[in-house]
């Protein structure tokens, strides 16, 4: 497994974990009525800021911990950190799919807003569209590495 392929797999695991946790937390708070009233958008903003904060920390910690785990599993004491033309090509193909999904999700979010959905929900739909884009981007990269693209 190359350095970039391993990064893609780790990123996939961390992204699913972070957004899974956020989705669980948000749905719980929304059910309790935390996002109602005049402070709804302010609270949403803070929740998103927390998400960015622990998302960054989780990515850093996840990369370190999972890199160590992968190296132990692969019995590779001297892993390569090389990135080459194929890695860059696969990355670009992943980004293209990711942008497509994120763009589609944001467009659908605007449609939902236009049809009178709760702005708190729409705001989170935008965030989840970006997350889905990142997820698809990484997934496409992992698949392309596996099929030898």
């Amino acid at each position, binding site marked *: *497994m*190359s*350095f970039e*392929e391993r990064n893609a797999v780790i990123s996939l695991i961390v992204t699913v974990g972070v957004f899974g946790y956020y989705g669980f937390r948000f749905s719980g708070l929304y059910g309790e009525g935390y996002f109602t009233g005049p402070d709804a958008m302010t609270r949403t903003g803070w929740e998103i800021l927390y998400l960015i904060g622990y998302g960054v920390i989780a990515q850093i910690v996840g990369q370190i911990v999972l890199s160590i785990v992968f190296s132990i599993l692969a019995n590779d004491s001297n892993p*390569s950190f*090389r*990135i*080459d*033309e*194929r*890695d860059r090509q696969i990355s670009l193909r992943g980004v293209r799919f990711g942008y497509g999904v994120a763009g589609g999700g944001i467009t659908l979010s605007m449609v939902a807003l236009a049809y009178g959905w709760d702005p708190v929900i729409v705001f989170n739909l935008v965030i989840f569209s970006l997350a889905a884009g990142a997820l698809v981007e990484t997934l496409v990269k992992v698949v392309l*590495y596996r*099929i*030898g*693209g």
Partner: protein
Amino acid sequence: MGKARVENDIRRLRFAHGEMTQKQLAEKVGVTRQTIVAIEKANYSPSLELAFLIAQVFERPLEQVFTFKPG
């Protein structure tokens, strides 16, 4: 019309050059071993620059290392 493929003779040439490993070839041309694996299996078509570098390692002209199979 099927998919065109860039096929190659790298595997045979590696063995003809002192049983060079994929890792050794990768290091000589500055790519990952996985990229050499993908090229050998014709799953990935290298850039012209990389193809020339590989041919240079085996001291062969490009067309003796890579062949184009139209689809």
